[in-house]
């Protein structure tokens, strides 16, 4: 619990720092007073209209990815069974790129395309993996197959597009929080409010499921229903996060693993993963804006690089400690 509380605090603190960051720097104290409703009008405008939505999107997207990754890794009982490995990110990307390349659609249309692509992929992978129930390895393998097909689709769309569209597609494919506003916050928030209680309600059955199907059956857990409901929730969370910010790599894969190491608890660790995901994304967005001088990078570039390097470091230290 202490760890979860700490993580939540870090996520919020990072959010406050991020709000204060930009062309017009605002001290954290002023940010807080503005958020509490006692700031100057100029600051209120910058904070509430421009920067708060972006930070909220970051927090929500990060938390969604964290939960989605935790659920998938638990259900597939495989640390690699995360949405970006088994094709959902690629499905969203194909949806979004189709809109960009063939219809030259605006931001909302692109988000819609991503959502449809992600959901369709999730549904297809689930149905294809279904055979008297869905089992871990088959799900991952089917997902890998789907991911490979969809990746080819992404590359194909990139060759079909004009260079201008290709550049725009690349920005989307990298995952970015630039220019996100309240229009992205509300749908995310609504979905989150509906799905979080569902996920939490199924926390106990999921924990049982990790011990294996037979043990779970014996303990009276409705195995298939638990898996179906949680998969659906995870797909929705991941698709909406991707629709809002693009396929931000590595958060869904790392957040649950980091959370597991911090809490030292086995099992899905849903809340801890959510807080970890939110923290990762906000800190990464701050870094992407600040670390490279004049040129700000899309946040996905940073999550990819830092996440990858961090996992490598983890592998080295864990090996020394003899844990993996």
């Amino acid at each position, binding site marked *: 619990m202490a760890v979860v509380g700490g993580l939540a605090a870090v996520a919020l603190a990072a959010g406050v720092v991020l709000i204060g960051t930009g062309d017009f720097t605002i001290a954290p104290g002023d940010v807080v007073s503005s958020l509490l409703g006692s700031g100057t009008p100029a600051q209120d405008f910058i904070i509430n209209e421009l920067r708060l939505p972006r930070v909220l999107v970051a927090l929500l997207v990060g938390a969604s990815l964290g939960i989605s990754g935790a659920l998938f890794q638990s259900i597939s009982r495989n*640390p*690699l069974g995360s949405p970006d*490995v088994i094709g959902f990110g690629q499905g969203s990307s194909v949806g979004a790129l189709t809109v960009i390349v063939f219809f030259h659609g605006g931001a909302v249309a692109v988000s819609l395309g991503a959502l449809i692509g992600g959901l369709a992929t999730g549904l297809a992978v689930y149905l*294809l*993996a279904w*055979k008297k129930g869905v089992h871990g*390895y*088959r799900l*991952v*393998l*089917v997902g*890998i*197959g*789907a991911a*490979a*097909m969809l*990746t*080819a*689709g992404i*590359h*194909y769309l*990139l*060759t079909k597009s004009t*260079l201008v569209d*290709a*550049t725009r597609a*690349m*920005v989307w*494919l*990298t995952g970015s929080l630039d220019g996100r506003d309240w229009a992205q916050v509300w749908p995310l928030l609504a979905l989150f409010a509906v799905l979080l209680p569902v996920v939490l309600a199924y926390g106990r059955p999921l924990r049982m499921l990790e011990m294996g199907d037979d043990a779970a059956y014996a303990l009276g857990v409705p195995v298939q229903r638990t898996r179906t409901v949680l998969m659906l929730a995870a797909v929705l969370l991941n698709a909406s996060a991707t629709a809002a910010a693009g396929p931000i*790599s*590595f958060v869904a*894969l790392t957040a649950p693993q980091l959370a597991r190491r911090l809490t030292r608890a086995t099992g899905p660790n849903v809340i801890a993963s959510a807080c970890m995901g939110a923290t990762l994304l906000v800190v990464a967005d701050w870094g992407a804006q600040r670390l490279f001088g004049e*040129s700000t*990078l*899309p946040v*996905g*570039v*940073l*999550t*990819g*690089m*830092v*996440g*990858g*390097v*961090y*996992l*490598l470091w983890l*592998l*080295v230290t864990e*090996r020394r400690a003899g844990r*993996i």
Partner: protein
Amino acid sequence: MLVDSPPQPRDGTSPAPPAPTVKRRTVRAAGLFVSVGALALVAVASIAIGAKPMAPGDVWHGLFHASGTADDVLIHDVRVPRTLLGLLVGAALGLAGAVMQALTRNPLAEPGILGVNAGAAAAVVSAISFLGVNSLTGYVWFAFLGAGVVSAAVYLLGGSRAATPVRLALAGTAASAALYGYINAVQLTDSAALNQLRFWQVGSLAAADMTTVRKVAPFILVGLVVALLLARPLNAMALGDDTARALGTRLTRTRIASMVVVTLLCGAATAACGPIVFIGLMVPHIVRAITGPDLRWILPYAAVLSPVLLLGSDVVGRVVTRPAELQVGIVTALIGGPVFIRLVRRKRMAQL
């Protein structure tokens, strides 16, 4: 083509090939013979079929009595190199996938997951963006370097002597993610690099010429031979490290040799025609369904059937959208995806 095989041990710890009966060995040898025949047919089709339809007589003329007509030049300078490259690259990818899956005892292991493609791509994008390299033959060396460095790094970071399947896969995923982050950053800031790389990234044989074939052939041939030599020690390692050691297998040497082979094969293949990931993942799975878990059969089968799939896909890609063509990387994914998913569904996957 799928031969019924006696039940194999499935629990991963003891996939010892049962002493093959004489009948079974005959069936497998016959299957290999049929596969070689299929390969010959596909190679002929790859030379005969293309964007420009050609009569069999003209093809024959171009191959053996070339007198410099436009058709002869087309056969000699375009279709023959393309077919040769397809043969080499197909065999390389299939073998690399089979060796990787055996080495890591991970059915998902393939160049993409272990980061080798990402390493090659990162090196190529660096070469394009920072060094101004813009020819396909220029990519070769960089892709090769990238693939080599990354597979060594993944192997070392994954735990070198004590590498477990999960740790290797995690190390590969981590390396891929970091490298793709870097690639994206470069592509975003340099649209010229994006413009070149987006065509290379699809995976295509279209730009094949004899220079490329000559550059990659030595690497792939050496890789091929060493891979086949590794069948026996890798078979022993499938029994578990302790048993393998007891049987006199030198674990470290086998692992290092396997990584070198994978680097040679993947680096050369990826450099020559971009990342074509599906073959290395899929063909070994199909082959295992035919031969069972014995690598002395899996590896030769993979070396023969992978180019069948790659060249076949390339031919299909040339025909379906005439006069334009679909890149082979897309066709292999479209053909291979459903096959792979069906295999995964049809029965329990043979464990490694």
